[in-house]
Each structure stands twice: as C-alpha cells, then as structure tokens.
C-alpha cells in the first residue's frame, strides 16, 4: 500500500487481471481488454466508448440468441 491511499502497482494490476479474467469467464464485456487490443492491433483508430462497447458486445453475444446448454 502506498501512502497516497491507492493500491500499489503490483496488487492493482493483479486485481485488474482477476476482474478481467472473471468477466471473460462469465461472458461479460471486458472494456480494458478491448482498449488494450485496440492500442496493440489498431493504434490510432477510433475506439468505442465504454457504453458503446457494452452495447456492441451484448448484441454480438446475445443478439442472435446465445446458444447454451441444457
């Protein structure tokens, strides 16, 4: 823990990774992951806002009725 009240870099990174993994396991949109993907693969192009990304993700995943098992 740093004195300025924020988690230090190591545990903040850990928490972020854990949340990102949890979201992906549950099929939730992972906005930080998307930003990272855009920065790595399409640098300089426009990115969706968090809300736009949420809508696009939910529509892509459930729009045609998410196949799932019994």
């Amino acid at each position, binding site marked *: 823990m740093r004195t300025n009240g924020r988690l230090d870099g190591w545990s903040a990174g850990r928490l972020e990774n854990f949340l990102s993994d949890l979201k*992906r*396991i549950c099929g939730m949109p992972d906005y930080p992951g998307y930003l990272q993907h855009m920065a790595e693969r399409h640098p300089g192009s426009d990115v969706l806002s968090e809300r736009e990304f*949420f809508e696009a993700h939910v529509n892509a995943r459930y729009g045609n*009725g*998410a*196949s799932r098992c019994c």
Partner: protein
Amino acid sequence: MNRILWIVVSLVGAGAWGVIALNRGETINAAWLVLAAVGTYLVAYRFYSRFLARRVFELDQRATPAERLSNGRDYCPTTKWVLFGHHFAAIAGAGPLVGPVLAMQFGWLPGTLWIVFGVVLGGAVQDFVILFGSMRRDGKSLGKMARDEIGPVTGLFAMVAILAIMVILLAVLALVVVNALKDSPWGIFSILCTIPIALMMGVWMRFLRPGKTIEATVAGIVLLIAALVGGRYVALSPTLAPLFTHSGLTIAWGLMIYGFIASVLPVWLLLAPRDYLSTFMKIGTIVLLAIGILIVMPPLRMPALTRFIDGTGPVFAGKLFPFAFITIACGAISGFHALVSSGTTPKMIRREGDARLIGYGGMLTESFVAIMALCAAAALDPGIYFSINAPLAALGGTVESAAAQIRQWGFTVTPEQLTALSASVGEASLLGRVGGAPSLAVGMASIFSGVFGRHLMGLWYHFAIMFEALFILTTLDAGTRVGRFMLQEFLGHIWEPLGRTSWYPSNLLASALITAAWGYFLVQGVLDPLGGINSLWPLFGISNQLLAAVALCVGTTLIIKAGKKRYAWVTLLPLAWLLVVTLTAGWQKIFAADPRLGFLSHARSIADRVAAGSMDPAIAARLIWNDRLDAALAGIFMTIVVALVIASVREWLAVIRGKKPAVVKETPFVESAYAN
C-alpha cells in the same frame, strides 16, 4: 518422476473402482465414487485426449481464428484457463443436475458407470472433435459444417433436429421449474424477484454506470439473497402466502408469458443481466457443492442397483437398457454441446493446442458436476427420494398413503419423516415433485447443512431451487430467441419479410410460435397423470442424443476426409452406441406393449377406459392426441437419425473408395505469431 505420478493416479483410480466393485450390497461412501471418477478423468485426459490431439487431429502451430480475425469482440484470443471457465459455464446447465437424479431410480451404479465411461469415450470426444472442426473453419456452426462436409440435405436435417430439440428441451426444463414451484409461495416469490432484479441490473449497466457489469452483478446477487430470505416470511404470512401460491397450470402459463415477453425485449434489459447472474451463481454453487461433498463425504444410502432396473420404476418407465443412457445425456454425452463447441468458444481459442483442455477437459468437468449431483441424490434416503420423485398419482395425496406405497416398493419411510422433511425446508408438501430439482435441492441442502448447521436447511433448499430455476429461466429466454431466429430463417423462404429479424411483427410472430410450441408440450406435461417427465424426459434424451449423432457423423466425416480413416473408430464407437440406444429407446417409446412405456399402447388403454365408461371422453381425446403426437415426434427423430447416418456413410464410402477426393474444407494454414 512424471511416470511415477501417473502410475499412482492410475492405481488410486483403479483402487477406488475396486472398492466400489467389492462393496456391493453394503453402504459405501461418496468419496469412493468421486475418487474413481477423478482418477479416470485424469488418466483419460493425460493419455486419450493427447492421442486425439496429436495423432487424430494433429493440432499444430497454425494461427487460430481468434488470432487471424481478432476484433476484440467475438473473435478474441483468450487465455487457456479463462476460456476453459467460459466454455464450461456455457455447456453446464440444469441437464447434468437433473438427468443423474432421475436415473437414480435404477440405483447409483448404472449412472456412475455411464457418466464416467460415457464422457471419456463419447461426450468429451464429441465436444473436442466439433471444437477442433469449427476452429479449423473460422468458427463455423455445426449446421454449416454438416452442410459443407456431408451435403445440403444433411445440413437441413441438422437444422430441423436443432429446432425440434430446442422445443422439447425448453418444455421439459420449464416442467422441472413448474414441479419445483407449484404450491410453493417461498419458491415463487424468490423466483419472481429475479425478474425485477435483472431489469434493475440491465438499467444500471446501460444507463447509470455503463459497462460496470461486475458491480451490477454483485449487487444483483445481494438482492437475490435478500429475496431468498424474504421468501420465508412471505411463506409464513397468512396474507401474502396465498398471493404466491399457484397451481402447476398457472405457473406453466406464467412461464409461457414470461418466455414470450423476455424473448422480444432488448437483450441488454433482461437476458444479459440474467445470464451474468446465473453464471456467477452457477460457478459459485458448483464449487460450493464440490467442497460440501468433500467435507461431509456422505454415505450413499441408495442401493447400487434397485429392483426398478426391470422397467417398473415410478419416476419414468423403461428398463435399465436403454433408458439409463437416454435419461442421462448431459454429463455423459450431450449433443447440445456441439452447438457451443461450434459457437462462441472456437472463436476465442488462442492456440490450437488449447482446444484439448477446453474441448475435452471442459466436458470432463461437466461430467464431474453430474457425478456430484448423483452423489447428492444417492445420499438421500431411498424412501425420501421416491416420495419426491414418484408421481402423485402413484403416491396418493397424503404422507400416509405415500409411505404405504413406498413400503410396497421395498423402502422404509414413515409418514412422520415425510412431514418433518417438508416442514424443515418450509414447504407444505414435497410429495410428487417429479423432475429432479427438488430432490437434488434436498440432497444439496442436507450437504450444506452438514457443513453450516441444520437450522438453515430451508434456506439452502430454496437456494438450490432458486439456483436451478434461475438458469432454467435464462435458458427459456435464450432458447426461445434461438428458436425464433431459426424459425425466421425458415419463414423467410416462404415470405421474404418474415425472415427479417429487424421487422417487429415478424419477431413477435416467430416468438409466439416458438413459445406456443414448447408451451404446448409443457401444458401437456403438467396435465399428464403419469407426471409429464415420464413422456417428456425420454423425448428430450432421444432428441439430445440425436443431435450428438449428428455431431459424431460430422466428426467422423472430418476425420475420414483428413485421410485418417484408421482413426475413425474414435467417433464411430460412440456413434454406434448412441444409435443402438436411441433407436431402441425410440422404438420402445412408440411401440412397447406396456401402457406406461409405449405411447401407442397408452393411447389404446385410454380408449379402452372410455369404452368401459370409466373416463371422460373429452379428457381422453386430449390424452390420446398427445400420445400420438409424442409417438410421431419420436418417429420423426428416429427417421432423421437413420437418414443422416445413411447420408454420412455414403459420403464416407465414397471417400474411402476414392470416388471423392479426401479433402477437408479447412481455412489455409497460417503460422501462429504466439510463441510457445
């Protein structure tokens, strides 16, 4: 060192099977079942899945669709273990929890053997081969692969099969919920609360704090627990309880209205938040159940084999062969998984080699869930098990008549025990709640109370019921939607505007038709004097195994066309077994002379009763019509299986004899940029 480890694992697994084999007739502990199952899974994963990955599929260093087509949304390279969790959450639902509990009427041994060996040689192979095939084809669906690799007619059969299984699946799962919730104010209240909770989460994630899915879901779970606790007070309140006490028929209509509305609402409002909630709950509860069983290590009170292997069982009619193998689909082999393995998962695999853990390993994990459900049900007193799972018509309406009937079946239970049990879980009665969910909930509640103390039994029971109902309702919503899209595709060929998924009237019409289809079978099940599960669950099993046969035919075709016909037995073996099981079961359901088993003889027995004047002709006409409908449906399933196998065999022979080139339609090889 590694070799020694595997020798130890194999010995432990074999030793556990030895204990199971030698202790016939005595009560043994659930721990032996868990050990034997896990030992077998580990050995199968280490050796058989490696053989499949290296020799049969030759997974290599090529770039996956996720890498080549990465778009940060559906095509998205995902770490192996995360995708494993994601895939598992998508394939595991109510199926592996319900099937093993119903099949418990034969005793715990047949289910255990089928679940463990069926998955190793059948289910996991199916999931793996379809995942592999789809991954090599940019994530193509099962129907498209069937069309491309076998032929257009097969593709059409696959589509019809998928639509039919969807309708039966939704009906039978809805029936499980109806039987769990009828006359249960606590249950109905807590399940009803999930709807506004999901709506609130939807609004939260879209408008209030866009994209903040985790915090919304955690808040949703807290509210869910509050609803669960609140349900107890509703059930105890003389003014509120009657408002939430409803008959099976009313609940069935409620579910239909819900399914229809939910499937035409925007996905962000209800489906997505509900899915997040149920996925969280699913993973949490399954982990909790595993820990609970390991801590409590309950003895299995059900015999290894019961007298009902002769086909006279009260839960559903039919002998051990073939009905144990139809009743347990999910957990051993489930055709439905082929849809997931050719859906979102193949588009997320980061490296080819990961497919082994995700496809084969994911299914082994579902099988493990089925084994735990089986342990929870086998730990129940057999008398209690049959009091919950036999239809009311057999038990009579009172605890005294039920106890007397169960004694006749050769199990001991007193009326006082039955009364005490329903009181401890906060229900008026647990008699005749066929469908698996309530008895599993009692089993889970006993295990959890064994860990946390007995006074919370009622809360755990309703927690388990809510957990199952939650994801069954999610399946109703998602499944109605899938059915709607497929139907719109068909209708579009008749009149083009009906195929437009953006045209609201077409959406409403297609949703209404799909809801009416599963709703029809649901109501039929609710009104069925034999309990509904008796006719619907075998139909579901047959249709699910039919889809598995489609998947295995596609898998065999892929293997043969890749020039590996010497390895075609890996899919032909489970396919042959499924064909024997499905066709025998289908034939018996249609033509068997026993009216409890055969649809047609049941129709005849009803006609005889009308002729003798002992039955209302109007009710009889409905029952006879339903019997004939069910018989026709079973006949259609069998015809599709046979036609499909013939088409596939012709294709295989053409390739083997060199009349057709052995070419697979894979996406060309591109080297992966991911280092090992």
